[in-house]
């Protein structure tokens, strides 16, 4: 570590690498990087982030286009995925490793070496002399016992002088600190391994349907890790029932539960489960989390008495405006009938609780719909060209080439005739549950790292390094015990500690003679 760069006009590659390395392994660099990481996180919490607040990002683009473009260029809308955030924590972890490697080597060296003898104990900050009525050898063996009992490592001086001991304790401090810091690299391993080999997706399943865990069945709503090798589990889940319970009238949610049956691909293992918020269910490392729900009315369409369609239709909600609860909004769905001529498309608005619709019509007040109560749908049917040849959104009806034909209200269990032999009925209202499906094989590494981190942190903060030396020199009535001490931390506490230790050392030697 010589500063050879000072004199030379240009650094060689080797020297610049060495300089970067030296910079990285200084604690100051690590601290600066840590604070930079915190600053980046602050930015990420103040600027709306993609995937969490997409609506607010869109609003920024609309209201402040310039600012939004600058933010976008800087990656501020996706701080935690940006190249500079990755750079900061990568450098931090490299710097950490660079700091820790030499410290770990030093600790190992230190742990192997015996405590070293010292000279001139009486020049030490903590020093005491006691006359004890035993021979030096006996005094020293008493002292050794006391120090051992107090968790010191003790080594005996083999020099020519009077018998002497060197003792130290508190290596746990450095060991704990190292364990704590290394744990962060283990956390990185856990993240990379877990996310890399895992996947996480989201799926909507209507009551009564069975869904198989496979790539194609996520409809694109899945993120797979880079190391993932398409080993989806093939686990099947049959959703028997979903129930959302709210407290009435406050509307505070009480329980969301999906009752389902999980089975492995061969059907050997079959298990009934209840999936709740906070209570996921899993099989073979794949876990299912309750994420959301919605309504799926069964809609049957007949043409001249012949069934044209019959299936539950998934309804969705728009984003509720400010101050409005999602529970007050009706649910929207669309039925498209491209085989008819002219083609027919029907828009539905579902009110799971019909009282909400009547309240809206009579008083204009939106009412939360907490449970299913005589569900009702309003509908508007269109005739014309569905423009099915274009890329389409199934939840949106493109009416540019259609004309409004009929509208009305369809209650549960009722049938409405639209004319031309076409009738629609609403025999049943079901719910669908939205489940988050996930596999993360790095979790146990993360848990291990978290435990090691805490285990390391405690001694790193609360133990202190102490060194003590004892010699016993013969005198007329036995020997003189000379004790020197040195504390690297909590020096003020050591004052008392040392005094007690000296008392105990003297007492151990004194009592020995009394009993023998």
């Amino acid at each position: 570590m010589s500063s050879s760069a000072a004199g030379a006009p240009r650094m060689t590659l080797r020297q610049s690498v060495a300089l970067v390395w030296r910079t990285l392994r200084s604690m100051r660099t690590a601290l600066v990087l840590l604070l930079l990481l915190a600053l980046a996180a602050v930015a990420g919490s103040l600027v709306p982030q993609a995937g969490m607040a997409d609506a607010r990002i869109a609003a920024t683009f609309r209201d402040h286009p310039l600012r939004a473009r600058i933010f976008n260029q800087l990656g501020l809308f996706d701080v935690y995925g940006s190249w500079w955030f990755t750079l900061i924590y990568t450098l931090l972890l490299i710097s950490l490793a660079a700091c820790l490697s030499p410290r770990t080597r030093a600790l190992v060296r230190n742990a192997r070496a015996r405590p070293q003898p010292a000279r001139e104990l009486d020049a030490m900050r903590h020093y005491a002399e006691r006359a004890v009525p035993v021979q030096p050898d006996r005094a020293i063996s008493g002292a050794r016992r006391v120090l051992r009992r107090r968790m010191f490592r003790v080594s005996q001086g083999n020099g020519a002088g009077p018998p002497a001991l060197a003792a130290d304790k508190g290596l746990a401090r450095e060991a704990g600190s190292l364990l704590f810091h290394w744990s962060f690299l283990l956390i990185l391993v856990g993240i990379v391994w877990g996310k890399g080999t895992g996947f996480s997706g989201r799926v909507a399943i209507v009551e009564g349907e069975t869904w198989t865990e496979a790539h194609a069945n996520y409809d694109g709503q899945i993120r797979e890790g880079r190391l993932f090798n398409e080993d989806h589990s093939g686990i099947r889940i049959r959703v028997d029932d979903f129930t959302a319970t709210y407290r009435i009238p406050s509307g505070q949610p009480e329980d969301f539960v999906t009752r389902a049956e999980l089975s492995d691909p061969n059907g050997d293992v079959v298990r009934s489960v209840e999936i709740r918020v906070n209570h996921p269910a899993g099989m073979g490392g794949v876990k299912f989390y309750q994420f959301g729900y919605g309504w799926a009315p069964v809609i049957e369409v007949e043409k001249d008495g012949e069934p044209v369609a019959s299936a539950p239709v998934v309804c969705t909600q728009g984003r509720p405006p400010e101050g409005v609860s999602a529970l007050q909004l009706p649910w929207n769905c669309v039925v498209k009938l491209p085989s008819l001529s002219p083609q027919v498309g029907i828009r539905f608005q579902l009110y799971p609780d019909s009282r909400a619709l009547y309240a809206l019509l009579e008083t204009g007040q939106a009412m939360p719909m907490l449970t299913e109560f005589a569900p009702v749908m309003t509908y508007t049917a269109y005739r014309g060209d569905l423009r099915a040849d274009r890329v389409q959104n199934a939840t949106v009806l493109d009416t540019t080439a259609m004309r409004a034909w009929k509208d009305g209200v369809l209650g549960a269990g009722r049938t409405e005739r639209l004319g031309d032999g076409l009738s629609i009925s609403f025999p049943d209202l079901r719910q669908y549950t939205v489940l988050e499906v996930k596999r993360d094989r790095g979790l146990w590494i993360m848990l291990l790292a978290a435990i090691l981190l805490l285990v390391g942190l405690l001694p790193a903060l609360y133990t202190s390094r102490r060194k003590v030396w004892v010699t016993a020199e013969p005198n007329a009535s036995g020997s003189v015990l000379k004790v020197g001490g040195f504390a690297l931390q909590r020096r003020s506490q050591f004052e008392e500690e040392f005094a007690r230790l000296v008392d105990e050392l003297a007492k151990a030697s004194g009592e020995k003679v009394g009993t023998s």
Partner: protein
Amino acid sequence: MSTEQWTRLSTDAFNVALFAYVAGMLGYFHYLAFRRQPVWRLASSAAFLGLAANSVSVVARGFAAGRVPWGNMYEYSSLLALLVVAGYLFVVEGVYKVRVVGGFVLAFSVLTMAVAVLFLYVGPAPLVPALNSYWIKIHVVAAITGSSLFALGGVITILYLVKDRRERRAGAALAPVAPIMGGAVDLEDAPPHFETGADEPVGDGATRRGLLPPAATLDRVAYRTIAFAFPIWTFAVIAGAIWAEEAWGRYWGWDPKETWSFITWVIFAGYLHARATSGWRGRRAAVIALVGFASLLITYYAVNLWIVGLHSYAMGVLALPAMALNGATVRRRAARSAPHDAREEE
């Protein structure tokens, strides 16, 4: 007792506690200025009375709601005030025998409780599903204990900076003391402008005894408090991650609450390291601690009240966990389950 009676008891006890803390605060400030022993006794009694009432309030609230009494911000604030005062009375005053900072500590609790009762009050109710987990016992207890200790450390750090400034001014007249720039790598107790290992500041004998304890004492107490809080906070963050894995299927998602608790953690980690770095001990480290204190307040208040995230339920309002389905799924899902498909028909 009925729910109403428990609620009533909780609210009454809350008011008694608030009143007693205010009285105690005034008493402690009087003691700080005039050092009358009886006044300290009265102030301390008032604080203990407040602590007892505060405890009754928290416990009664738990019975009223039929669950752990830390399910929303009002309850959390009440418990935070309780722990800060308890930490002060039993640790700072009990162990370290530092009596004169009580006014500031009680002022913090009074402020917390006043904000709680004025702006954050909600009636007792069962937990929303997102909070209904045994992890609320583990995670929130750790978070609140860590917070109260950080808050205590923050208050004492402010006093340290005040006192340190005064001592420097007084000390400027005396012979300057060279700061000791040791190459210490370990966390160290004493700031550099004190003789290493000495607990009393150099030249203190010559300065007039001020209102506050010596800066070195304040600094040490603040450091110990923060060093004690740090592992608890670390554990709280870890427990939170485990709970998030259980509830939302991911242990970390940069939710504002997660982000800010991480920021707070990083700042206090920086503080502990700064104390080990020569040239950063003492005042500079104290400033970092204050930034950490500010970050803690943001984590607690600002994130809950103004920044929308998954933790917004902390207000106790309706919390349907993002029940809207992602648009893309719906489209494809609806396409599949649409009652009619041209291909089927043909």
